[in-house]
């Protein structure tokens, strides 16, 4: 009997792990924008989660005013990128003039204030609102295992977005310039890279990634006003575990934490899971503040 129970657990485990990977991809996508902006902008953008929510709100507003859903969601994601760009060009301007730790601290408080502003406005104007994309198919069976179609599609969206980002950073000239600037700002200036422009571009990219994360989350579950700081803290957890300046690190850490999250909540329940995740963050910060996977950029 014990043998059978173990077998059932193991059978369920494969689905749990795959579910965890799919959720983890979502986490990676959520964290990548935060990490990009911190890496080059030096700003820990605590308003990151609000970008996700605003994308959801704009999508729904556009769809309900008669837009084609595909165009509406694309426009909303683009606008999220523009919001990032606006952030860089307006409120953060004075922050860049400060130096070192002061810049990071003031940036932290400015974006925290911004998160409060946006969270207040969105929950005031859109109470009880949610953004959710329905997938017509309920479950998909692959090799005898059944998965929620929404989770699969969401994982796919996240994977493609992350893959495109990697191609952009790895293959294009602009992407290479961004990576150079992430590694060494002075050095890239010497090589003729306009670091200021790269920073603006990174804010746009970060906003774009948050917008895509909104779509992925909207497909898998739903996006609601008032949960912005929670989303930011998830992104922060992933970012810290992966290394706050490392894009690849964030991607790997997201998947890893997704799997840990799935297994822990399968075996121990959601309450202990969150504490385990937070515990991992504390341990990582204490023993390897640069993150577990902070090898490359």
């Amino acid at each position, binding site marked *: 009997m014990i043998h059978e129970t173990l077998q059932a657990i193991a059978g369920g485990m494969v689905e749990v792990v795959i579910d965890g990977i799919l959720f983890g991809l979502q986490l990676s996508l959520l964290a990548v924008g935060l990490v990009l902006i911190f890496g080059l902008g030096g700003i820990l953008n605590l308003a990151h989660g609000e970008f996700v929510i605003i994308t959801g709100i704009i999508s729904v507003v556009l769809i309900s005013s008669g837009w084609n859903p595909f165009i509406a969601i694309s426009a909303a994601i683009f606008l999220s990128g523009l919001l990032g760009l606006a952030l860089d060009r307006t409120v953060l301007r004075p922050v860049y003039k400060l130096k070192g730790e002061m810049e*990071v601290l003031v940036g932290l408080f400015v974006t925290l204030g911004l998160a409060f502003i946006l969270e207040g406005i969105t929950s005031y104007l859109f109470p009880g609102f949610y953004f959710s994309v329905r997938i017509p198919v309920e479950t998909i069976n692959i090799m005898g295992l059944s998965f929620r179609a929404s989770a699969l599609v969401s994982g796919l969206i996240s994977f493609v977005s992350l893959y495109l980002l990697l191609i952009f950073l790895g293959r294009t000239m602009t992407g290479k310039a961004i990576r150079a600037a992430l590694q060494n700002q002075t050095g890239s200036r010497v090589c003729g890279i306009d670091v200021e422009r790269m920073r603006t571009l990174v804010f746009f990219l970060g906003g774009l990634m948050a917008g895509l994360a909104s779509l992925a989350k909207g497909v898998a579950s739903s996006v609601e006003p008032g949960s912005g700081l929670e989303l930011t803290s998830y992104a922060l957890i992933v970012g810290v575990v992966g290394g706050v300046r490392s894009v690849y690190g964030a991607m790997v850490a997201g998947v890893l934490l997704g799997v840990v999250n799935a297994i822990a909540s399968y075996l121990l329940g959601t*309450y202990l899971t*969150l504490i385990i995740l937070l515990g991992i963050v504390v341990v990582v910060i204490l*023993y390897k*503040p640069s993150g577990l996977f902070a090898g490359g950029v």
Partner: protein
Amino acid sequence: MSLRSLYVPKPILIFFAVFAILPLISSNPYHVRIFTIVVLYASFVYAANIIIGESRQLFLCMSALAGISAYTSSILSLFFGINPWLTIPAGILFSAAVGALLSYVSIVRGLGEIFVAIVTLTFSLIFENVILGLRWLTMGETGLVTPVLWWPFQEIAGKRVASYYTILIFTLLVSILYANLVRSRLGIALRAIRSDRVSAEVVGIDVTRYNVIAASIGSGILALGGAFYGYFNGMVSPGVFSLSVDIAIILMLVLGGIRTLYGPLIGSVAIVFVLETTRGLGQLTLTFLGILLVVLILTFREGISSIIQRAAVKLSGQGQ
């Protein structure tokens, strides 16, 4: 330190004399409640002034530290059926130990301010989830009804006013403690560490020791204030000790003036006033706090207190 060398600046006494008269001017329960909250917040801001201001450790878990002691004291009193005054010290010790541990670990691991912020922020989230999860002990989200605390002179003055004066005296003592701390060996050591950490270490100042002491003192103040708040409020819940309290404290500190003696008082009066007048806005209060935080941080980092001080110096023509 002998009592004679205790430094009690006169303006502080004037401040508290004004506060002491307030309930005589208006004994309206709502007003007295507001006065109590102002004074209580001022004690929190003094604690923040020691931890964040003097020792530059960006603790984003101040409300959690206050909450730990409030929950510890209430739960111990409820379970053993003993007088809350006996369990408050346990709460203080527990919070101070946690604060000291957080500080010690971050210094030993050489975390920068930003990582201290992330660790303590994570700690806040852990605190909230532990409280929510230990439902059988803490009543989860609904909150725990605190046992009744006897406030000195409540038979004469009534409960509300008596609790106000107890907390007022506590905050007065905290402000005097701060005034003396800054001039003490500890305060001078912290100033040296702030201006140049490496040189301070070279001269033989034990950076770890002084920072941990500062964090424990601050946490202890937060703990006693938190316990008072729990008993004054009649209940404790995760919402009462949420992160937004930390934000309010930081706003008060920045607005009033960081590392100043009068800043915490000015800041808490101003921010509580703003919070109370914008209460009708619902969720927009959050937006308002956010705007205030952004504007203050970008334009007004030195705070009201230092501006008044400079104006006063100019007027009296001293000019240090």
